[in-house]
């Protein structure tokens, strides 16, 4: 009796061990699939010798840092173009867009969630309906529109500016919706008490609602960042010179130069990727939570 249980449990343990082993094997193979292009990029970028990059690319040596290693490719990129300026443009555009967006989208969502006023229901319905309109379907008419918009100082077009890359994306219906969903879930007691004490609505929003809403602000900021950091279509259409162009357009142009020097291209690509990867690793949990929240059903 005892021996059979013992055999049974050994068999069970072996089977369980096998299953776990198989799971790790499968997950590691998948991990290789998801990592190899990134590792390939990073390793190629530090091989100083272009011949080495080309001869290694068809074997497993593509993933091994060997031969003459260094930052020569990175220096080459800096020698050919003003990488710092492109990076500055990208960071400026996304940062201003995200910060302004957090302010105005949360304010509107707060009005929709908490204030009683005529037209509230209609406004909410309009916001939900606007989520459906994809940017791609309005890009061309928007180009026509911004081409003729005036700006301070007498400019008669928005083309080739920073603001043309920022302002159209500040207000975002989906961000408003995420804020709205969060705000209606907050308990009202504190806000009502403050109202009785005579606090203004803006004060209540700033001093009571904001501190309670850090998670949703982080979520919206990360989602907007992920959506717009890689923006390509719109900057391609509205910028012509290198002054205000973001990194992605710079990368595409650099890639289009012939002859292609893959070591340099991979160095450029690495410089775009590494900062975002680092930020992602630092705030991993927040990234995952933000993305998960897009799955909530409306």
């Amino acid at each position, binding site marked *: 009796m005892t021996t059979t249980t013992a055999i049974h449990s050994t068999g069970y343990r072996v089977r369980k061990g096998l299953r776990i082993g198989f799971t790790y094997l499968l997950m590691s193979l*998948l991990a290789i699939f*998801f990592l190899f*292009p*990134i590792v390939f990029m990073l390793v190629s970028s530090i091989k100083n010798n272009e011949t080495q990059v080309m001869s290694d*690319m068809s074997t497993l040596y593509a993933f091994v840092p060997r031969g003459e290693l260094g930052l020569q490719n990175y220096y080459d990129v800096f020698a050919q173009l003003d990488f710092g300026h492109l990076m500055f443009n990208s960071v400026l555009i996304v940062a201003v867009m995200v910060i302004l967006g957090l302010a*105005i*989208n949360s304010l509107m969502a707060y009005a929709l969630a908490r204030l009683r006023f005529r037209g509230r229901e209609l406004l909410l319905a309009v916001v939900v309906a606007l989520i459906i309109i994809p940017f791609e379907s309005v*890009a061309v008419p928007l180009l026509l529109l911004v081409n003729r918009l005036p700006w301070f100082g007498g400019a008669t077009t928005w083309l080739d500016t920073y603001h043309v890359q920022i302002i159209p994306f500040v207000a975002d219906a989906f961000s408003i919706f995420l804020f709205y969903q969060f705000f209606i879930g907050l308990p009202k007691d504190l806000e009502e008490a403050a109202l009785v004490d005579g606090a203004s609505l803006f004060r209540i929003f700033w001093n009571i609602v904001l501190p309670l809403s850090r998670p949703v602000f982080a979520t919206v900021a990360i989602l907007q960042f992920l959506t717009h950091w890689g923006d390509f279509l719109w900057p391609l259409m509205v910028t012509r010179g290198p002054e205000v162009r973001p990194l992605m357009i710079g990368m595409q142009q650099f890639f289009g130069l012939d002859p292609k020097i893959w070591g340099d291209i991979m160095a450029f690509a690495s410089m775009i990727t590494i900062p975002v990867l680092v930020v992602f690793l630092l705030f991993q949990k927040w990234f995952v939570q933000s*993305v998960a929240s897009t799955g909530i059903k409306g």
Partner: protein
Amino acid sequence: MTAISKTPLSSRRRNETIMAWVFSSPALVLLTVFLLTPFLMAVALAFTDQRLIPNPNLPTQIIWLRNFVRMFQDEAFLRGILNNFYFVVVVVPIQTALALLLAILVNQKLKGMNVFRTIYFSPVVTTMVVVAIIWTFLYNPGEGLINKFIQTITFGMIGPQKWLQNTKLVFPAIMLLSIWQGVGFQMVIYLAGLQEIPTPLYEAAEVDGASKLQQFLYVTLPQLRNTTIFVVLATTILAFKLFTQVEVMTKGGPQNASMTTIVHVVHQGWGQLKVGYASAISLVFFLIVLGVSLLQRYFLREEKAVN
């Protein structure tokens, strides 16, 4: 008494209304100018021959349905729409299934799951332009890594291919990297769905003697119904927006083999300045996305009514 207490209340109401519009107006104005207006413009322009830079000798005319008629004779447009559907049919099932598999794997209570989750998600934070360029290198004709890999595992039976120059292979090649880049996003949504399934359901199933497979089929899958609808339809919409990787890698070529609707819209509207025609195509694209979105809302409502 009542009159006194009523006045501050109604004034507070009025104040609330004013503040509501003050709070809403910045976002509302921007949405109106930069989303609603161009959308209405697209609807109107679709029936004209408007150009981006108007020619003073050729004033813009209303041409009614001629843009739409032209679309059906436009090979690049038809190829683009067909490719988008081709992309949906292939990528959506694969990407959804893979996302579910990844989510189930990293949802296990084993050591190191966080590391795997991070690895699977890392392509999502790699910008599409960069992804497209790395994969162009991987697809290098002749000596590229992917060619060598396929030659090795098939013992040289499948020779080197010119992935991005071959009209049959170029679109599947783009599909592969799109899945690679996007699947981590869906994995995370599935992961959130999995974590919402109440554990007692599994315990009950185990007591009833259900195998792991049965638990997956009769507990996990039905509980993930809404998540799956969301993932499938959101991925479908993304598939119709396909642009960046195609523009960077092939610009729709060779011979329109990798053309997509949005690539065509941009080439027509921005490249050839045919704003009217591009607006008409945008409108067709919008109707497709609208259809998918309504389908999504319909399915999710249905579910609520049943429960």
